[in-house]
């Protein structure tokens, strides 16, 4: 059982953006979903944990490794897949993986070959292992990213928005691989796609504007909203009215241009509303909405 502990981690960029605002969290083995909109600070947090970036203040520990001061120790047990990456041109997946394996300290040649082959196998890249990675499609490249991350059998795996741009089949496959790894390790998955978390995370948090808004198991978070989400179908011209009168958390169009709206409320907001089954998206939007309202209030 591993534990990653962040205590009061803050980071402000030169341009004044507060990317991390006093983040404290404890993450245990299993899949951890970090949800948040674009620009929420997810990548900054991921990079900070991955030793690529130094926070202004705070502490991060993985078990007894003090990450900010024992970078090398962490790197030995870290697997990291950045949001976007390239590779050296004109090199095959196999060669590159061997290169990474060496960088990761795999010293025995035969064992190195075994693990590289295995990584190629499970990421379904074995057939194209001699092809240049630079020529891979988006999905293949992401899988290559996973393959390189596995090589050192990491205890802590950090994947930053890995499913963005993948087609459904690729995404599915990718998440499966992650799920498998996640059983014994800490896997932190950042995403702005709620479904990613819904499908495989055992724990999650929502990050917005550098602040942690909610840290709960997805099931608990959904459970919390039981009896608090109300749905209704309205005419699109009435939207403004509903927006001002209710805590509107999401809308989506039907084919006839009518709108399904979902509203948050401890009690039934109106007769026309019916109780609906809450889902993770509701959790996400409820928290963002609350945070936004708070931010606006504190500004005014």
């Amino acid at each position: 059982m591993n534990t990653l502990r962040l205590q009061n981690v803050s980071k402000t960029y030169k341009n004044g953006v507060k990317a991390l605002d006093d983040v404290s969290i404890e993450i245990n083995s299993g899949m951890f979903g970090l949800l948040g909109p674009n620009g929420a600070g997810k990548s900054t947090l991921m990079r900070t944990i991955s030793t690529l970036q130094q926070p202004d203040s705070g502490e991060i520990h993985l078990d007894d490794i003090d990450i900010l001061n024992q970078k090398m120790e962490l790197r030995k047990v870290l697997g990291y897949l950045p949001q976007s990456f390239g590779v050296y041109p004109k090199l095959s997946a196999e060669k590159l993986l061997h290169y990474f394996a060496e960088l990761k300290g795999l010293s025995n040649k035969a064992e190195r070959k075994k693990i590289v082959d295995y990584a190629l196998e499970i990421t379904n890249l074995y057939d194209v292992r001699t092809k240049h990675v630079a020529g891979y499609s988006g999905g293949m490249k992401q899988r290559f990213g996973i393959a390189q991350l596995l090589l050192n059998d990491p205890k802590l795996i950090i994947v930053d928005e890995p499913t963005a741009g993948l087609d459904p089949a690729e995404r599915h496959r990718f998440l499966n691989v992650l799920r498998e790894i996640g059983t014994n390790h800490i896997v932190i998955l950042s995403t702005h796609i709620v479904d990613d978390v819904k499908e495989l995370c055992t724990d999650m948090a929502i990050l917005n504007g550098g602040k942690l808004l909610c840290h709960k198991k997805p099931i608990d978070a959904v459970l919390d909203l039981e009896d608090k989400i109300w749905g209704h179908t309205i005419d699109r011209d009435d939207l403004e009215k509903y927006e001002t009168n209710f805590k509107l958390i999401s809308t989506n169009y039907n084919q006839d241009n009518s709108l399904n709206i979902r509203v948050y409320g401890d009690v039934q907001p109106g007769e026309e509303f019916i109780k609906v089954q809450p889902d993770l998206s509701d959790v996400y939007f409820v928290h963002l909405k609350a945070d936004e309202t708070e931010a606006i209030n504190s500004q005014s």
Partner: protein
Amino acid sequence: MFSKIYKFEVKSWLKTPITYIYSGIMFLFALILMASAGGIFDSFTVTTTSPTYQNTASAINDILGGINVFLYFLLPSIVGASISKDFKYEMHQVLYSYPISKASYLFAKFLSALSIVLIIILFICLGIYLGSVFPGTNPDLFTDFNIWNYLQPLLLFVIPNMIFFGAVVFAVVTFSRNIFIGFISILVLIIIQGFAQTLTADIDNKTLAALIDPLGAQALAFETEYWTVFDRNTSYLPFEGYIVYNRILWAAISILIFAFVFFKFKFNQQAIQLRLFKRKAERVIKRNFGSLIRVKLPEASKAYHFKHWLKIAFKHSRFEARYIFKNWVFISFASVTILITLITLAVRTPIYGTSTHPVTREMVDNASSLVSGFMIIITFLIVGMLMNRAKSANMNQLVDVTPFPNWSFLLAKFIAVFKMQASFYILALILAVGVQIYNDYYTFELELYVFRFFAIDYLRVLSWTVMAFLFHSLIKNHIVGFVSLLAFLILLSFFPQFGIEQSIFRYGSGGGSTYSDMAGYGPGLKVFYIYRIYWFALAIVLYLLAILFYRRGVSYSAKQRIERFKNNLSPLFASIIAMSLVIFLGIGSWIYYNDNVLNERYSGKEREQLQVDFEKQYAYLEQLEQPRITSVKIYLDLFPETRDLKAKGVFILKNKTSVPIDSVVISLSDDKDYKEIYAFDKKGETVLKDSLYDFDIFKFDKSLNPGEEVKFTFDMENKPNTLLNSRSPVRTNGTFINNQIFPSFGYRSEYEIQNNKTREKYGLAPKERMKSPLDSTALGNTYISDDADWIDFETTISTSKNQIAIAPGYLQKEWEDGDRKYFHYKMDKKILNFYAFNSAEYEVFEDKWKDVDIQVFYHKPHDYNIERMVNSAKKSLAYYSENFSPYQFNQLRILEFPLTSGTFAQSFANTVPYSEAIGFIAKVDDEDNESVDYPFSVTAHEVAHQWWAHQVIGANVRGATLLSESMSEYSSLKVLEKEYGAKQMRSFLKDALDKYLRSRRFESQKELPLMFNENQQYIHYNKGSLVLYAMSDYLGEEKMNSILSSYIDRVAFQEPPYTTSVEFVNLLKENTPDSLQYLVKDMFETITLYDNKVNKATYKVLENGKYEVTFQANVLKYRSTEKGEKEYKDARGESLVLETEKEELTSLPLKDYIEVGVFGETDESIDGIQKENVLYLNKHLISDIANEFTIVVDELPVEAGIDPYNKLIDTNSGDNRMEVKVEE
């Protein structure tokens, strides 16, 4: 639309700090450069003086040219960036879909970037201007401000070059979307420019170089090569001839490039790519199904210890090296290096068109400097690329989070860079050996190559490799890193100008020695290695800093980087750094202590002050009458193994004056090098002992009466040689020392500051470089010695057993004593007080001319030209003794000495030391008419000195070298002509003319007529040979030689007052017919030049089958002032004027005899040597500027010419002949 984009672009440039950073840096650079040329640093270093102004059009053009090399490198980040930023920030996807026209987009982009470049150039000009008026600069070095001096270089060169280079970068970046490739294209252009420059080494290539130099610099150099100091100071840059062609050519290329961009550019999203091979297209289907149930990674052991990472470093170095070798930055650089090295090695260092044998020393010398120079540049580049390799592939985040240590990663790159560097050296070695084989030369001396490349050159490059790692570790952008490294390199070269002279303060410098086949590297090698250890210790520190500052991860503030540095600084690293610093500082302080405390060291500035003080304090001594040396006996012991010497001397001094002499000024050797004691056999005491200037004044108790002699004895030995200091000039093999190390007498006026501007600064009265020959008080000394006339000479030299020691005189006895060998030489005639000692392991070649023994002492492998030298010596002895006077000795010896002492030959009495680098390894091509047999001509010149110096010696006044150097040149030319015919003469004289005319612009004070020359080489050698050869042509060889002979007769071996050029010229005048008197005036007494030119030449066939040639030629003659200003008026203020449609031509009044010639088809003569077919050649009396000649010849005429053999001094010798065409 255009103006909108343009304005937007310019505005955005003006908002970026880079515009101001560039402008600021370039401004400062220009300011420092100009102010430094203006003497701003005079308070730290030697006084800056120059006969030319620093702010004339050509001077400003030079400065701009230098600074702009940097600006060219910045172009990619301005012109290139203006187009590439749209790609980089993915703006193009949006922008290209807007309705903008291609023309307005491209022109606006290009012109806006160019405008920014212009702004930077304006700042540079401002810097130059402010530098020229900066408080503290010397206003004498500047002329009045003239805006044209700035505008002209800008309009002719700077701006067109920026447009051209900009167009190239723009084109390359537009298509490749990669600034870096734009950067490489600039490098390639700069290399082409450098290549054009190397081409100019051969006179015949100058016009080609003038065309292909993209910067136009070679065109300018070509058009202004014969500019005088006056021209430089007063003329604007010419816009004519090759400058026009060059500018048109490259403007056309710029337009073509831009047109190409314009037509090829499309607003689409794909960069245009050039594909060499088409790939076969393949349909690819992804497997969309199949899933994964379980992940169970196989066990793999991991190692994080030192050994693993070391192994990985070596393994990955192969990976990195492959990247370098496949990278076309390397490939293009390597190809250029191969090409240039090959050309240089094939040509080597020709003298008078004759090359050398490809001895390994010559190959190594040539390859070494070239390859190391290129290598530092490519190392700067490649290190940057390697350090940023992951980053530019956007793979850095993947790599950075792996647990490899920085040192392993950097070590891999370091080894890869070493492999690249080694490959350059191995390539150079292969090329060199190839050239040797091609020349049928099989003594390869591989160890010499390997040692020089890897044990000397590489160690210098190493310092810069490490520096490159540090710079690129600290600086994120590798182009900025590269330019910073270059700037640092150049800044360092300016350190001495700022007064930082000692090597320990100048990164990577210090120590060095030339290699000689005879003497090896000498003691300088040890010093070199001490400095290498010193810099290596620092290199370790810098390299570790590079490791510690290596950037991993993203966005670091300076503070965080320092924090990161502290975190990385392990105790091991800290202790290595500390230890290296201790070594570095230790050796540094030791060297400093040695050079500054143990041995007094004077900066250039301090030395200048010392000279001033010496003159102020002691100039009165010049008036002191001194006794003169009449006899010299030297006992010299040379110890080649320990490089020590011991000497004992006995001089007889005689009071040759008519007054009693009570004290003697004795100049001694530098007391830091020698221990020296002396004594007179006459009572007296040392009344002054100046150890700063190393001289004593000894006062006799009783004055030395007129005619009285005194014996002076001295004993000296060098102080022990140390690691850092050699105290004696003795070499392990090839010692060459002359009498300057022994005591001399009298005030040393040659130690005074010579430059009048510097003298003025220190409040010293102006001083002529040499005194006038008309000053009868100045004729007491020869120009060789000022404390003796003719002396008796005898010496005994000892050396190690395997060496032969030689000095002037005849060998009396030779014996061995233990492991020492002794030689006793004695001269039976009086000689000049000018003698030398040589000792080496020699081979001896002996021959005889009449009863004169000829010997050549040479280094065994250098046996190529011994017979040529001996042949020349025989022919010379024969010609000179027949035409001038008998040879005064019965022996003539030629001794080879190491090139460490220089590349020259020198004539002592019956002894001619001759450098290994001149003549001994020359590869004479007897088939080639254009190349001079210089082992032959140099030997003839040195043998001639046995007459012209050792029989006739001029007083130490202006024109003295006419009587030695010019005469010897003339004499040797005659021998050469006898041996090889008139044709070799032409290539010799053509070279002499070119050298004379080219050197005039570098005159540091004033050009003087031949008979008044102040030991100026371009006058007494080059002009001297032209003038005397022409004179003999006009008078006839026999007549000329009889004048010389009677002159020798009159003045040979004379006692003071010594003869002068005036005496010779008077004799010449007496024997010159009235019609030719003007020649003496033109050639000896004044600086006179011609501008002769054929305008038109036609022929028609006459009825009798003969050919009538009619041709028109202009003859112009003018005099030049000492600064090079032209004068057309004679003493009576008259001149000739010819008004033509185009121009007004002026000339001195003419009554000159000038050769007119008509030439036919060239004959294929015997020996396969082409001989010119002269149909007509006669001297005509010319009295007008415009002349028409009608000449009937028997054969078909091909060429006609005025002064066709360039016997007269003419700045354009190419237009003296013209092809003859049929009359229409």
